[in-house]
């Protein structure tokens, strides 16, 4: 089933939604607008000719400096129909995307990871916290304008027992001893 066929099947089920077929090298890709995402997801899951019962991946890609910069990508799997589908939603820097957790519970952590890595807000998500990075981390590392190499001082709950200067001095002292030996 290619993208136009999926769009034709979805058309009557989600009135008022505008779909767009995307280019792809492997399987069908369709773009959907954020406001019709949840209705589309429910139709994709429940329609017998589609039956995308499993959401296998949610991720995003940052196309900075393009506007809107983000694409949130959902990979769907239909076991009874042996189909895969890629669903894409475009999102700007501060545009929220509705959560699809009500349709597929597996979206919960995946959307948390997208928030963590890209800073895309999922509207209606009950527990939108960081998943992989520490809770007090600043910034969203997978954004293209996030630096690759950063230096961060060690974070501890107690003061460090040895300062960085002392540590370096100790290393130097050990090196001198080795040289002298």
């Amino acid at each position, binding site marked *: 089933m290619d993208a136009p066929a999926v769009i034709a099947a979805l058309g009557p089920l989600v009135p008022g939604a505008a779909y767009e077929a995307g*280019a*792809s*090298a*492997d*399987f069908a890709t369709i773009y959907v607008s954020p406001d019709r995402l949840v209705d589309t997801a429910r139709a994709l899951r429940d329609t017998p000719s589609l039956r995308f*019962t*499993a*959401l*296998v*991946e949610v*991720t995003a*890609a*940052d196309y900075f400096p393009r506007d809107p910069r983000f694409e949130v*990508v959902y*990979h769907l*799997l239909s*076991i009874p129909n*042996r189909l*895969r589908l*890629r669903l894409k939603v475009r999102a700007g820097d501060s545009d929220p995307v509705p959560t699809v957790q009500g349709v*597929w*519970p*597996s979206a*919960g*952590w*995946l959307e948390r*990871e997208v928030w963590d890595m890209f800073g895309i807000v999922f509207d209606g998500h009950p527990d939108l916290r*960081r*998943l*992989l*990075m*520490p809770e007090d981390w600043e910034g969203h*590392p*997978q954004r293209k304008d996030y630096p*690759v190499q950063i230096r961060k001082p060690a974070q501890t709950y107690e003061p460090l027992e040895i300062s960085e200067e002392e540590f370096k001095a100790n290393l130097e002292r050990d090196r001198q001893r080795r040289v002298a030996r």
Partner: protein
Amino acid sequence: MPGLRTETMTVNMGPQHPSTHGVLRLVLELDGEVVRSLRPTIGYLHTGIEKTAEQKKWQQVVPLVERMDYLAAQSNSLAFVLSVETLLGLEMPQRVKDIRVLITELQRIASHLIWLGTHALEIGAVSMLFYAIRERELIMNINELVAGFRFFPSYFRVGGLREDLPRGFHEAVNAFLDRFPAKIDEFEGLLSKNDIFMRRTQGVGVISADDALAWGLVGPIARGCGVDYDVRKYFPYCGYETYDFDVPTEREGDVYARYRVRMRELRESVKICRQAIARIPPSGAWACDDPRVVPPPKDKVYTEMEALIQHFLIYSQGFTVPAGDAYVPVEGPRGEHGVYIVSDGTNRPWRIKMRAPSLFAIQALPAIVQGGLIADVVAVIGSTDVVMGDCDR
């Protein structure tokens, strides 16, 4: 009794608990022995591999993705090279496909052996770990023979393999395949009818087929509750459609069913390996002949100018991949491993994302163990076969 007051107790399990398979932290709310709620915390092994990969050339990403799921290194790299080859439109020679099938099936056996050893160890069958590791050592030796590296061989490359198979490869694989089926019988003899093992696993950690799919648990966990989905059958890659093998399923959906599924998968993998090794001729093509990706043979580099230039370009600039995106799934030992890649048409990936089956398993953990006993938490974690390097990436 009047005036008797009960309250729940919050217990922290991990991140250094020996049975959490790495660094997974669970916050359990207990009512006596019963688990009322469970909150997993992950991220302790996050190393930012996906961000690092964006700074590397395409070929340099292969060793990086192997370090995600460290027990199934070559499933990761197979998914990655297949997705890049999809964008490049490359078709591999039959021999390369068969070698890839053979190596990844051996990898599946090695990964399942670690699962078997640790899972049985945690339930109390301590000696299983030694028996399982002993057999896995033979597969590590085969890896070393092939690539000089036991854990992360990086043998698969975009465009084929790194080099041809070494001398003695067929003998080593055949010796392992002759020895191993009797060992599976031995393992099953120790566990399958073991009263303690059965009591610890039967009826424990039950999940229904609908729930498994809703939580995205495609793989051995879903096959343990009757879903016969296997990427190798549904969306064949590397010529799996030409191999004769079955997809084992069980109906119960409990820890014991997942154990049965994986034990039968070991036998199916041996079956596939036997067919593959019989098909692989001792010498032949080990890469496709696309000059964009595969460097020319060394004797031509020394004698022909064009070959020298091409060799230099591939090793200095790398190759470019047409703009676009692709997601290629493979059946890894823990379920569907997939890599989503985005290319902007340059020699470095714009974005790569690994679908981590362990992440889904840990996400579904509260749904599986809630209402069960605390001792069953260990059995359930073992049966989901999570690898934290895969989960946190």
